[in-house]
């Protein structure tokens, strides 16, 4: 994988052609000129005292967490702890009941629709099943955001798209339709699509689900490599402990609507807390019970018999 070529610029949007000078100015204002990127902030995402209730069920209850810039942060936790909900809150697809979600210095709740869309252009997201647009070819899927947001000449779009496809190793599949791809290829194309606008934050929602070991290895390698080469911040939501431990710089363990543990994979493996030990070790019973809450077992069996 010889990508990106040595000496390439890490923020190619500087060479993007805008449809008019106004949108170029907007872009400048959002991203700042070269060297004015808000790099001073150590944390790209800060969540303070977040509450979120859906359908009477409390998902987050006073959640506090920070995600540092430039590193691979894994968000883990048992099923149903709201990991995907967290991603939707961070990307502004849903709004919190109370509390603050700050992404790259802007409070999500206070953003107008346009400002939110501008913020989203700085994020890339890899969905669980890839979520490729089924009526477009692989090439067009990756080119989608470029075509929608910029007015680049066809030749440049082609180069950008092929570069990204080369990065995920699927340049040869450019003309295939998404239905012709395997699960792993599907996700790699989605990854190429997520990085086509050169985002600052790259979010992976359950990137390993349903993949064979080879595809899993490929995705793992890509997560690490894209993070380091592109200098972006990666957030990986997953519950594959072994895989995540090999790639993450930091793990946040969620349970019961709160962060219960936070540290490097090594620290978490040595964490004495029962819930952390249960999750990291994959034990069937512990603080997260094996049984769904129910009445007394024998009592219920006997009651049935009497009836």
């Amino acid at each position: 994988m010889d990508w990106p070529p040595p000496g390439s610029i890490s923020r190619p949007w500087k060479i993007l052609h805008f449809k008019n000078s106004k949108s170029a100015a907007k872009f400048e204002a959002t991203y700042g000129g070269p060297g004015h990127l808000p790099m001073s902030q150590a944390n790209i995402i800060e969540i303070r005292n977040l509450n979120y209730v859906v359908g009477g069920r409390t998902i987050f209850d006073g959640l506090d967490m920070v995600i540092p810039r430039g590193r691979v942060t894994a968000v883990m936790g048992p099923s149903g702890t709201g990991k995907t909900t967290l991603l939707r809150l961070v990307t502004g697809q849903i709004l919190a009941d109370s509390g603050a979600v700050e992404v790259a210095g802007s409070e999500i709740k206070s953003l107008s629709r346009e400002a939110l869309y501008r913020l989203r252009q700085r994020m890339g997201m890899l969905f669980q099943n890839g979520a490729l647009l089924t009526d477009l070819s692989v090439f067009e899927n990756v080119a989608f955001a470029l075509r929608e947001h910029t007015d680049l000449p066809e030749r440049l779009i082609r180069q950008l798209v092929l570069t990204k496809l080369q990065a995920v190793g699927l340049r040869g599949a450019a003309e295939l339709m998404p239905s012709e791809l395997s699960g792993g290829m599907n996700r790699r194309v989605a990854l190429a699509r997520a990085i086509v606008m050169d985002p600052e934050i790259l979010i992976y929602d359950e990137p390993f689900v349903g993949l064979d070991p080879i595809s899993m290895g490929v995705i793992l390698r890509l997560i690490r490599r894209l993070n380091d080469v592109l200098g972006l911040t990666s957030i990986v939501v997953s519950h594959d402990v072994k895989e995540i431990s090999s790639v993450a710089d930091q793990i946040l363990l969620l349970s019961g609507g709160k962060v219960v543990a936070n540290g490097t994979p090594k620290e978490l493996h040595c964490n004495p807390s029962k819930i952390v030990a249960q999750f990291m070790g994959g034990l069937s019973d512990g603080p997260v019970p094996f049984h769904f809450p129910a009445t007394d077992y024998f009592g219920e069996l006997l009651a049935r018999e009497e009836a």
Partner: protein
Amino acid sequence: MFKEWWNSLSESLIAAGALVRFLFRLLINSPRAFLRMDLIVQQTYNSGALSLVIIMLSGLFVGMVLGLQGYQLLQRFGSEEALGTAAAIGLVKELGPVVTALLFAGRAGTALTSELGLMKATDQLSAMEMMAVDPIRRVVVPRFLGGVIAMPLLAAIFSMVGLYGAQLVGVQIMGVDSGSFWSQMRASVGIVDISEGIVKSCVFGIACSAIAVYQGYYAAPTAEGVGRATTSTVVTSAVVVLFLDYLITAAFL
């Protein structure tokens, strides 16, 4: 008992309100959508050109039945020549727009709903949101407009083919004089009748397309949800079309 009725009534009112609000959202976003003519052309093709065969076949048979029934009825009064008038008025004002709208809901409407529902279920719409592309603008509105453009054209084609069918049975088979057939039709069909048909088909086109994309866009993102939304598209479209048909007919009197 009353409480159940009241509940289902208020449910339908809420649904109707949501649909109308969604329609306004579509209309507000529509002018801008014409900047992307390629998307509208593609959706006009999907909703219109691909429905052409079923519309023409149905139109032919409806016209032929109309010719046969009309002939039988008019013969009793010795005025078979009025068949042309009867067929033209029936097709242009009523059967053309209404039957086309029902077929459109069944063919193009369900296709729109299930397509949007599947896009939602497979996170394609969320993915667009994440790429800072408004799915309403990029996906929903072009589909809506494609349907709105296709429907009046389909209705006109239906009426024309239907008229040919009526002519085929009435003139070629039953032996009504073709001159009387056409001349009486021309004398009694006014431009008002044609415009009533056009107004109806335009309104039905807006209603059916809006219902189809609404059901798809708000479908529960599961296989079952998409199935239910598709059924709902056909049922809702049929009821709404017949209701609007009455309103427009009354308005034109």
